[in-house]
Structure formats: structure tokens, C-alpha cells
């Protein structure tokens, strides 16, 4: 072969190989098919009521039909602008006699009247449910989403896949599984063996005997101390002791029975709060946290691995709501959380820890 041609060929081939990765790049630069700014959450979709608020707006389209059905006591069916089928019930109890369980039956958005919506047992509700009154569900039901202007009560062994919002109290009978967001403007009450992920309400009472009105922690409105004690290794606040200031511990932290921290605490390893102890600020652990019975914490409770909370403990107060959050939360009956209870992976109500 001619050496000149060989060298030229080699140069051309090398150049082609160099340019090859730039071909899709040039195409994208020219077409700008993916050139919009990354979608940033500007509207705070993390707000727990985001979906419920959106659904309420969505339902405004059938308000006239709903009013007609309520006044006539009849029901109506139709199609929403987005193509979803709906069923408007003038009388909520009528739902008990509808063929939801039949195979290939139409699965509409259900809209109840001002009277309570009573739902049959062992049914899969694959579309969102709206009730202008309460929703009383049967046992072993499976829901996608529920919005009720009054109370919501789920029967034993039911599950919710996406979200529930109740203007009145939300309650779940034993062994319910709440996979999405559950919120209430009044309160949430869970029974034994219920599992949950994200709950928000003025009070979240665990078990039938948890009393949100019971006197909890009496703390000053504002903890103004900014003094910080830093401790390498393990640390203990002895039983009955009062600790003033913020505390950061690089090891394990034990707060003895009846002790009080007038500030916030953080531990890099396990944090144990013994019975009757109280913390005026926040309680943070980079590991596991065990909160004993009848404790009181005013600020956020955050653990990076797990939180165990025993009976009688109050997190937050009626006036000052807070957040309890960890990947895994196990909580005994008798606990009350005011605000948000958020288990990123799994939350479980247990009889005894």
C-alpha cells in the first residue's frame, strides 16, 4: 500500500474515532431536546396535604351533580374531564349495596353525600374516594386514597396505598397498613399492630387509651440557651439531674430516669432516654434511640437508624407541634405525638417493646 495513503487513512480514521462521541453531543446541542432546567420543587409538594388539596380541587367539577343527588336522594354516574368515571351517591349508605366486588365491575371515583359513606368489607377500591361526610370502612379493605370532610375510620386489616386526609379524626382499627401519607386536621388514632409511614395531625394517639389532653411536658415557651457542651466518648446525665444547655456527645448518651435537659441533645451513637426524663429542645441520634415510658420531648426527635418509644411518652405539645422521624419507628400504645410521625422505611405499633 502507498505509505502516504496509509498515513492519511490512519489520520482520517483516528479523527473519525475522536469525533464519534461528539456526534450525539452535537445533535443534542443542536436539538436542545433535554435543555430545560432540572425540575425543582417550587410548590412544596412535600407538604403532606398536597395530594388531598389537589383532589379537592379536582372534585369541584362534580359539585353541582353532588348537590342534585343529595337533594333527590338518588345517584348518578358520568365521566370527569380527564376520562375517569365517577359515581355520585346522594345517600352514602347506598354504597353498601353496590357491586364493587364483582369482577370487571366499573371502579369509579366515589362521591358521597353529606351523610356518612359506609363501605362494604373485603373490597378493593382502586380509585380515589371523596366524602363530604365521614367514611366508615369495612374490614380487610384496600384503598387507593380517601378524602373526607369529616371522620375516617378504617376497619381491621385494611390498607391504604397512597394517602388519606380527614378533616375530622382519622382512626385505624387493629392491623391496618398505611403505606402512604395520612393526615387529619383533628387527630389520628392508631390501634395495635398497625403499620405506618407518614402521619400528620394536631395529635397522633397510639392505642385507645392514649390521651392527647393529658398534661404533658411543662416547658418554657422558648429555650434561649445557646451554650454547647461537647463530649468525646460516652456520657450520662444521672437520674433526676437537670442539665442546662445543648449537649453533643460523640459516643453513647444515657439520660437517666426523671432527668431533665433544658436544651437540645445529640449523640453519635445510641441514645437512651430513661423513664420520666424530659428534653426541652430536640433529641437527635446518628444511630438508634430508645425513649422510655412517660418521657416528654418538646422539639424534633430524629434518629438516623431507629426510634423505639415506650408507653406514656409525649412528643411535642398541643401548642407546639413537632416531628418524630427515623427510617424505622416502633411505638407502644399510650404514646402521643403532636405533629408529624414519619417512618421513612417502616413504622409499627407494637404491644410491648
Amino acid at each position, binding site marked *: 500500500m502507498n505509505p502516504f495513503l496509509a498515513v492519511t487513512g490512519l489520520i482520517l480514521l483516528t479523527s473519525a474515532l475522536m469525533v464519534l462521541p461528539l456526534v450525539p453531543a452535537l445533535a*443534542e446541542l443542536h436539538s436542545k431536546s433535554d435543555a430545560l*432546567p*432540572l425540575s*425543582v420543587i417550587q410548590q412544596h409538594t*412535600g407538604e*403532606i396535604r398536597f395530594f388531598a388539596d389537589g383532589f379537592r380541587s379536582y372534585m369541584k367539577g362534580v359539585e353541582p351533580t353532588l348537590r342534585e343527588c343529595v337533594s333527590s336522594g338518588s345517584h348518578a354516574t358520568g365521566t370527569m374531564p380527564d376520562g375517569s368515571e365517577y359515581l355520585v351517591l346522594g345517600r352514602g349508605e347506598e354504597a353498601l349495596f353496590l357491586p364493587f366486588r364483582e369482577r370487571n365491575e366499573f371502579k369509579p371515583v366515589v362521591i358521597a353525600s353529606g351523610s356518612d359513606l359506609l363501605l362494604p368489607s373485603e373490597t378493593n377500591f382502586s380509585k380515589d374516594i371523596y366524602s363530604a361526610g365521614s367514611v366508615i370502612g369495612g374490614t380487610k379493605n384496600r384503598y387507593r386514597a380517601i378524602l373526607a370532610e369529616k371522620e375516617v375510620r378504617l376497619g381491621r386489616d385494611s390498607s391504604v396505598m397512597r394517602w388519606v386526609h380527614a378533616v375530622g379524626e382519622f382512626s385505624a382499627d387493629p392491623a391496618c397498613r398505611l403505606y402512604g401519607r395520612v393526615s387529619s386536621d383533628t387527630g389520628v388514632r392508631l390501634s395495635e399492630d398497625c403499620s405506618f409511614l407518614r402521619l400528620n395531625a394536631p395529635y397522633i394517639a397510639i392505642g385507645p387509651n392514649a390521651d392527647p389532653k393529658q398534661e404533658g411536658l411543662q416547658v418554657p415557651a422558648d429555650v434561649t440557651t445557646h451554650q454547647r457542651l461537647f463530649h468525646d466518648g460516652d456520657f450520662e446525665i444521672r437520674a433526676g439531674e437537670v442539665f442546662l444547655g445543648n449537649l453533643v456527645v460523640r459516643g453513647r448518651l444515657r439520660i437517666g430516669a426523671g432527668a431533665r435537659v433544658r436544651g*437540645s441533645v445529640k449523640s453519635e451513637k445510641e441514645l437512651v432516654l430513661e423513664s420520666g426524663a424530659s428534653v426541652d429542645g430536640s433529641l*437527635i441520634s446518628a444511630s438508634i434511640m430508645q425513649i422510655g415510658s412517660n418521657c416528654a420531648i418538646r422539639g424534633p426527635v430524629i434518629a438516623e437508624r431507629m426510634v423505639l418509644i415506650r408507653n406514656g411518652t409525649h412528643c411535642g405539645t398541643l401548642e407546639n407541634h*413537632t416531628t418524630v422521624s427515623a427510617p424505622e419507628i416502633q411505638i407502644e400504645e399510650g404514646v402521643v405525638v403532636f405533629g408529624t410521625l414519619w417512618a421513612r422505611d417502616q413504622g409499627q405499633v407494637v404491644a410491648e417493646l
Partner: protein
Amino acid sequence: MIYVLYVIVSVICIYTARHYWFTLNRLFAFQRHPYIDIDTADWPPVTVLVAAHNEEKVVANILSALMTVKYPEDKMLVIPVNDRSTDRTREIIDEFVERFPGRIRPFHRKEGKGGKAAALKDAMELVETEVILIFDADYIPGAGLIRQLTAPFFDPEVGGVMGRVVPMNCGTNLLTRLLDLERSGGYQVDQQARMNLRLVPQHGGTVAGVRLSALREIGGWNDTSLTEDTDLTYRLLLHGWKTVYQNRSECYEEVPETWPVRIKQIKRWAKGHNQAMVTYGLHLLLGKHRASLRERVDGTLLLGVYIMAPFTLVGWALALGVFYQGVAPLHGIVAILSVTAYAAIGNLAAFFEIAAAVRLDGSRKRVCLVPFLILGFAVSIFAVSWAAVSQVKDALTGAEFHWDKTERFRKAAS
């Protein structure tokens, strides 16, 4: 010469391993977002400082956005820090003060030392709250951002917090698209991996927060620093305060749209970073303080990212030199240097980090632009190296650092 080359290759290999470690961690390991779930709390009073020097094009956007965020109105005070502006910035701020009485308290700075740190330092006389959030005027915070940036301060170990910056003008031209990719890699992978691994997430000085008591403990804003954010990161670390990164606390920013502006920006960053390296590097690595061993090592490597540019150039020159000298064992070294230099890219997030970040962001076609990053890299490596050389020259001649404001490209809000 060959031993210098060995050292350079070794250091570049360390950075390469670090990039791989971060990327794999971000892709496959447990992701730490400990404070992002705090959505209900007795929120503390906060002061939002908005640094503004001749920002007539953008300041109205950020003030409008801040007036609509979901944070208790009686607990949030916005202080626009109008730093010697000669355009309509003051007029625009005063219009907002009138429209939102009691919610905005302007700080009009007419004279004094130049630079953001100096302006923030002077504005501290108006700050009374324990939590301070800082934004540059070209940022547009979303509704939940103030809460998200405040939440980490419930942890008494946290002294600083940093959110994620997302370019809003990324589609303008090739430069903005490349900067979009770089930001993606830097935040989505680099910062989050450092958060996951309990290393040293960097305070960015905007979309960020600092605790007042921590700031006082470390001596306040350092107005001699060209990059007050890097300076703050290391002083907090040396005093036992954590800086945390919140990847889901995203905020739009405007990135430079012309190469001269970009070069000026990265040269300032490089000088500021190198300044911090000289000031804190040795003490961080070997001194007596509260930083853990992993924080010491990572913090030192982080301080060195901008010096890697001239380091890499020297390595290339040496590699070529020894190659033409015909030293036999060097062929392996040359190969390693070529591969690792391509992958490590001193001052920028590495290519594979960026590709992983783009994937994590759910973007599709923009990953095709990754080969063009070599262009951005080439510009940066020479700009940063030039900055390092001029910094040494300045140090020798006693010349003072000069702070250059980044030019804005947005059209002024009507």
C-alpha cells in the same frame, strides 16, 4: 524529574479513587437525609440575608419569592444587603419594604471594603436570630426551602447548612449546558456522598445557613477571604461544628453565559480556595481539634482540588519530557497519568461523577453532552492554573486580592 512525576501520578490516583468512591457510594449506598423529614416544628426565628451588589436585574425576583415561602411570617425577617450598588437595586428594595411592612429590613451599605464577606460582616449588626440563611440575589427559593434549610439547626452539632444549586438558564448555550452538568455532578454526587460518608460537605455561601452562635465562636465573617464559604466551612469544622448538605433543598440560580465571566468566576473560586488551603490545610491535617480522621483527610483533599489543575499541567509536561528522553519504565506512568488525569479533573467533578449525577437526576439526553466537558475542563485547567500563578505573584509582590462580582444575564423584572 521522574520522582516528581511519581508524586503527581500518585496524588492524581488518590483523587481518581476518591471520585470513584463518591460515585459508587451515591449510586449504591445508604443516602443520608436526616433532617429533610422535619416538616412540623416550633420553627425558630430566622434572618434571611440577601447579598446584592448592583443586582437590579434579579433582586426583585428573589424578594418576591421570599415573600411567598411557607414559613411563619412573624418568625422570618429578610435583610437585603445592598452593598454599594450604583444601579436601581436600592430603589427596588425600598419598594418591597413599602409593600411588605415589617417583613423586610434593608441594609444599605454605602461604603466600606469590597466583597460579599465584608458586606455580610457589616450587616450582622441587624441580625438578632440564632439561625441565619444566606442567598445571593440571583437565586429563586421555592416555597418549602426556608423550612428545609432551617430544619438541620435543630441538631445542636450543626453549625452550617448547604442546599443544592440548580441552574435555571441551562439551555442558553454550550457553556450553560456544561455548567449545568458540572453543578449536577458537584451537588448530586460529590456533596451528597460527602454527607453520606460523614466527610466534609462544603458550605456554598448561598442557599445556605449558619448558626449565629457558631459564627460568633469562630470569629464572624472573614472579610479577607475571597471565598467566604470555603473559609466558613473550615473554620466551623476546626471548631467542632458540622456543615450538612441537603440535596433535596434545591434552588434555582443563574450561571454565567459567557466564557470571560465564567473564567473570572472560576479564577476567584480558585484563589479563594487556595487561600483557605494555605491558611487551614496543615492545621486541619495535623492540628489538635475536633475533626475526625476521615474529616481531616477529606477536608485536606477538598482544599487541594483547585491546586490539582497546575499540578496536572506540570504532570503532563513532565510526562512528555521523560517520554522524549526515552526513559523506559515511564511508559506505564504515562498511561496511568493519561487515564487518571482524564478521570480526576482536579477542580471539577469528574466525568463519571457527572454522568452518574445526570442519571440520578432522571435527565435523558443531556448526558450526551458529557464529551464536551473536555472543553470546559481545558478552559478551567488553564484559568485555574493562571489564577494560582498570579496568586503566588500577588503574594510575592504584596498585592491585595480583588473581589469580582459575577455578571448577571437575566432581564430586569418589570
